[in-house]
């Protein structure tokens, strides 16, 4: 896109997170960043740090030694690394095993009741939530998930297919739990939140169960979306 916009007469500068891609595409100006995918500006709620990143990228526009300029940002962002002693802002009982869809529904609903107050603290603290893609009330998630586990194909008005409805419900579940986990205290690393969610919550286990069920489905869209867009590979159960 940078190349295309520059060809059309617009000066561009790219915040880059993957060096091989920058080296192959050779945009006019790029600032190579040492941050993880998902964090091009590095550190949340750190305006000084983000300004440093943005300013270095924008100042590339003042260089005259193009047509391909690549600089590197020198500093890691602080919350890239695990925070010693971090614990999620909500204490949950260890997940169990659940014999059927009704058991999953009950366990998930019970766990959500514990998570919601922390999630509300997050909203109050940061003035925002990224929950909002599912098109459903969060109180409907347990029943919807149970329906999928039974092999049904429930739908919601906001999405064209069951596959999309489940995908965005999963996104919202991960968002709510991620926000609840970091409601209090300084920012943990992304890895700390992920390990807590996928290994210590009913919700994480539920999404893995939904993926398994989706991949057995005769509905090709659900099978494809479930296999690729519910659970990141590092957190899949061992084969």
């Amino acid at each position, binding site marked *: 896109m940078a190349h295309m916009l520059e060809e059309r007469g617009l000066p561009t500068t790219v915040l880059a997170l993957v060096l091989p891609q920058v080296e192959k595409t050779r945009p006019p100006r790029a600032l190579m960043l040492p941050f993880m995918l998902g964090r091009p*500006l590095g550190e949340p709620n750190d305006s000084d740090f983000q300004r440093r990143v943005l300013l270095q990228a924008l100042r590339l526009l003042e260089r005259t030694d193009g047509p391909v300029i690549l600089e590197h940002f020198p500093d890691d962002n602080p919350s890239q690394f695990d925070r010693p002693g971090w614990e999620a802002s909500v204490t949950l009982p260890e997940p169990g095993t659940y014999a059927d869809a009704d058991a999953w529904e009950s366990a998930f609903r019970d766990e959500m009741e514990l998570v919601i107050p922390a999630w509300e603290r997050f909203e109050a603290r940061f003035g925002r939530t990224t929950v909002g893609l599912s098109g459903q009330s969060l109180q409907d998630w347990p029943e919807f998930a149970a329906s999928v586990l039974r092999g049904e194909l429930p739908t919601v008005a906001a999405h064209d297919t069951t596959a999309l409805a489940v995908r965005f419900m999963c996104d919202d579940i991960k968002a709510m739990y991620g926000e609840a986990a970091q409601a209090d205290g300084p920012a943990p690393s992304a890895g700390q939140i992920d390990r807590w969610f996928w290994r210590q919550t009913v919700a994480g286990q539920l999404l893995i169960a939904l993926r398994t069920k989706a991949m057995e489905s005769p509905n090709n869209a659900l099978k494809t979306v479930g296999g690729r867009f519910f659970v990141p590979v590092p957190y899949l159960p061992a084969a």
Partner: protein
Amino acid sequence: MARLEDIPEPTRTAVATIPCPAFETTPFVAGPPLSKRRVAIVSSAALIERGDTPFPFGSGECRALQRSANADDILISHVSINFDRAGYQRDINVVYPIDRLKHMAIDGLIGSVANTHYTIMGSTDPAAMVESADFIAAAFKADHVDAVVLAPV
């Protein structure tokens, strides 16, 4: 320095080996000092405003984000689940630095902030993005934008 090696597989191999276009030209457009420039953002995070339909998978469309939009009601609808979202949960500026630009304009580091910014779905085939590139370029020129920051996710 990151850190391909920090990205877990299979994402690491996927991002390192994704087919990338090889361009024959090397355009390079000059402009005024940064303090005089009008700056816009193009985000590949498939951003939407709360209540809007998420980007379809593989979509080459672009969508506008008005400078006046409530940043706390901007959500990521990108299809990939293999990037961190914990940072953006706390602060939209981690992926869409709209507030940072506004403050930089107030402080005189840049000239001004564009009225309209744009967002696309990253990982879409570049061949499918030509129409969006035309549209975005025309829109930015109409708004006298002379600096574009491209932010990935």
